[in-house]
């Protein structure tokens, strides 16, 4: 798909198309920023209402101006979709950072932008200095951003539903590296994705609420916390309403509820649709599910063994609740923690940190709310490696044909392998760059690898590096990594290519 595209300089009409489509993002962000006003009214946080009003109004004003002055009937092409996706994932968080900054919950506008990008991309790294004293409405907004941004995929959905033609909607999905194909109609696909998200949000909220009440929380707090954690759990985002993350509850049942919702979030939308449509056998036949479950069990076993041998966690329950839980949180790219961040840096053995970093880099399923390289690509690359080994062992005349099962039987073509390898390579390049920059700031290698993998894989686990006192350069670096990771790298390189072309040849 990418190879067929010729990189020609952007014209003014191209910019007009991109700007016009940004107006839709602006409108949708305006709606998203308006909704927390209901929470503010419910919890008597009337002083917070102006922040949301201002953020929402600015989004609508900007949307109206872009819509009016850049109105065009021109059709969106692939290059527009790629640039759109890259720009929209910066534009929407920038707007959403307005109420966060105005509320004074963050130390600086840069921190508010960081929080907003972390929210929209479903990462979960936070620079909030005092989450426990944050207003409920701002806290709700943080979680809601993750659900709408990553759980529902509001940017691509807004383009596809508000888009004028079917083609522009298909391109909107491709720009964000999401494959379409649940249903022939893209609008129907979008509705199904929203429906699946809302259904799992209801299930997750019920699970967390029941677990919370069972553990002694009052029903009101259990519901509010449950709703927020269901939003971020399904979005594999990882923001929580308390600074201690899930350790606040000291509860096995809350952690079990989190595991269920995290794994659901890390599974492919197509798989959800197939299973909900009655094809239950798909769960066990799907290549991605197999790879995901295998890696989770293998990594969980390795980390737990390592923690046990280091003498840190002596009981089976503690090995499950610390070792296995953190592996599942890392692999699904959620970022819920049951261990204080600083303990990952100071107490956990290096081997476990490296395994968690690897899990975060590999990530969950394609077409899911997870980040990382994705299980489908890992499975494809592994299968192609096995095929290569077979080829070298068999006679030259032998033909090795491979295929994999992913909702349907798919031949293992060179195109698929190449696509997977290019994206995996892109991730690794950014991972190395991020790690080196973090090391330059004086952090240890394994901690730098951990935090970089967390930002790039849109995970949100932290070993304590991410904090309000972190250097601005490192904050910007992690913001870039979260953004690039969300776009699966390619759209970023395309945008950089267009910017360089525009600088060299100008905009015609």
């Amino acid at each position, binding site marked *: 798909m990418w190879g067929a595209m010729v990189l020609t300089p952007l014209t003014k009409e191209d910019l007009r198309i991109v700007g016009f489509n940004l107006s839709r993002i602006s409108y949708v962000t*305006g709606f998203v920023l308006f909704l927390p006003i209901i929470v503010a009214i419910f919890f*008597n*946080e*009337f*002083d917070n*209402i*102006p*922040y949301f*009003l*201002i953020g*929402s*109004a*600015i989004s*609508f*004003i900007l949307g*109206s*101006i872009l*819509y*009016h002055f850049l*109105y065009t*009937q021109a*059709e969106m092409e692939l290059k527009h979709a790629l640039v759109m996706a890259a720009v929209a994932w910066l534009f929407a968080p920038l707007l959403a950072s307005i109420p966060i900054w105005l509320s004074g919950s963050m130390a600086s506008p840069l921190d508010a932008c960081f929080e907003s990008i972390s929210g929209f991309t479903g990462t979960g790294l936070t620079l909030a*200095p*005092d989450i*426990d*004293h*944050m*207003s*409920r409405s701002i806290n709700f907004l943080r979680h809601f951003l993750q659900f709408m941004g990553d759980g529902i995929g509001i940017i691509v959905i807004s383009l596809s539903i508000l888009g004028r*033609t079917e083609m522009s909607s298909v391109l909107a999905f491709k720009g964000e590296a999401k494959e379409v194909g649940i249903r022939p109609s893209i609008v129907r696909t979008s509705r199904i994705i929203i429906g699946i998200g809302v259904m799992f949000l209801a299930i997750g909220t019920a699970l967390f609420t029941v677990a919370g009440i069972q*553990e*002694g*929380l009052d029903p009101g707090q259990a519901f509010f916390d449950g709703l927020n954690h269901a939003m971020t759990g399904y979005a594999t985002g990882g923001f929580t309403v*308390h*600074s*201690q993350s899930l*350790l*606040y*509850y*000291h509860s*096995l049942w809350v952690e079990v509820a989190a595991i269920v919702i995290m794994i659901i979030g890390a599974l492919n939308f197509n798989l959800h649709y197939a299973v909900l449509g009655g094809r239950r056998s798909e769960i066990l036949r799907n290549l991605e599910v197999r790879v995901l479950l295998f890696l989770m069990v293998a990594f969980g076993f390795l980390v737990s063994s390592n923690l046990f041998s280091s003498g*840190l*966690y*002596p*009981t089976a*329950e*503690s*090995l*499950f*609740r*610390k070792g296995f839980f953190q592996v599942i949180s890392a692999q699904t790219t959620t970022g819920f923690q*049951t*261990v*204080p961040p*600083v*303990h990952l840096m*100071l*107490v956990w053995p290096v081997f476990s940190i490296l395994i968690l970093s690897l899990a975060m880099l590999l990530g969950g399923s394609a077409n899911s709310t997870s980040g990382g390289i994705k299980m489908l690509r890992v499975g494809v690359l592994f299968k192609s490696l096995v095929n290569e080994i077979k080829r070298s062992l068999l006679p030259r005349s032998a033909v090795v044909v491979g295929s994999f099962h992913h909702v349907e039987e798919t031949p293992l073509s060179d195109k698929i392998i190449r696509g997977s390898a290019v994206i995996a390579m892109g991730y690794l390049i950014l991972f190395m760059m991020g790690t080196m920059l973090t090391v330059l700031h004086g952090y240890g290698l394994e901690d730098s690898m951990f935090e970089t993998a967390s930002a790039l894989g849109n995970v949100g686990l932290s070993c304590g590096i991410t904090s309000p006192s972190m250097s601005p350069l490192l904050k910007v670096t992690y913001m870039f990594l979260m953004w690039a990771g969300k776009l699966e790298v390619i759209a970023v390189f395309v945008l950089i290519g267009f910017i360089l072309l525009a600088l060299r040849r100008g905009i015609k």
Partner: protein
Amino acid sequence: MKRAVLVILLLLLLAPSARAETLRELLDEPASYDGRQVSFRGEVIGVIIKGDHAWVNIFDNGSAIGVWCRAEEAREISFIGDYTHRGDIVAGTGIFHLACAEHGGDVDIHAISLTVSEKGHVIERPMDVLLFSVSALIALAAVLLSFYLWHLRKERRKRVPWPFY
């Protein structure tokens, strides 16, 4: 007499094992405090009663930890810290665990004693009338601008119809 002085000295020597530590010190150097008696102090940010015991989550200078105490001690707490409340400040002594075997490996403190040393209070968060007025004006401007531009577009379409694609 000498024996009494010796006993008092011995008690004084043993007593410092319950040193005053900040939560940050406990969390940053957990191995050196693991299994030892420590003292703690912090603002209450959560109370979860479980039968005859309770979890009291306390917060101090950016660090938070759970304290496992008796339910009747937790019931003495009046204010839990959040956006509109300054939580009670509690202090006490207890045994610090880096990975508590009783509680699934959680880092926690099992309180020997826990008392409310400072009562919390309600934090007034009055609405800034000026800010609210400005925000309402901006919102009104957004609505008016959207309608005006929508009207302009409609008029333009009437004059020059867009080609149908």
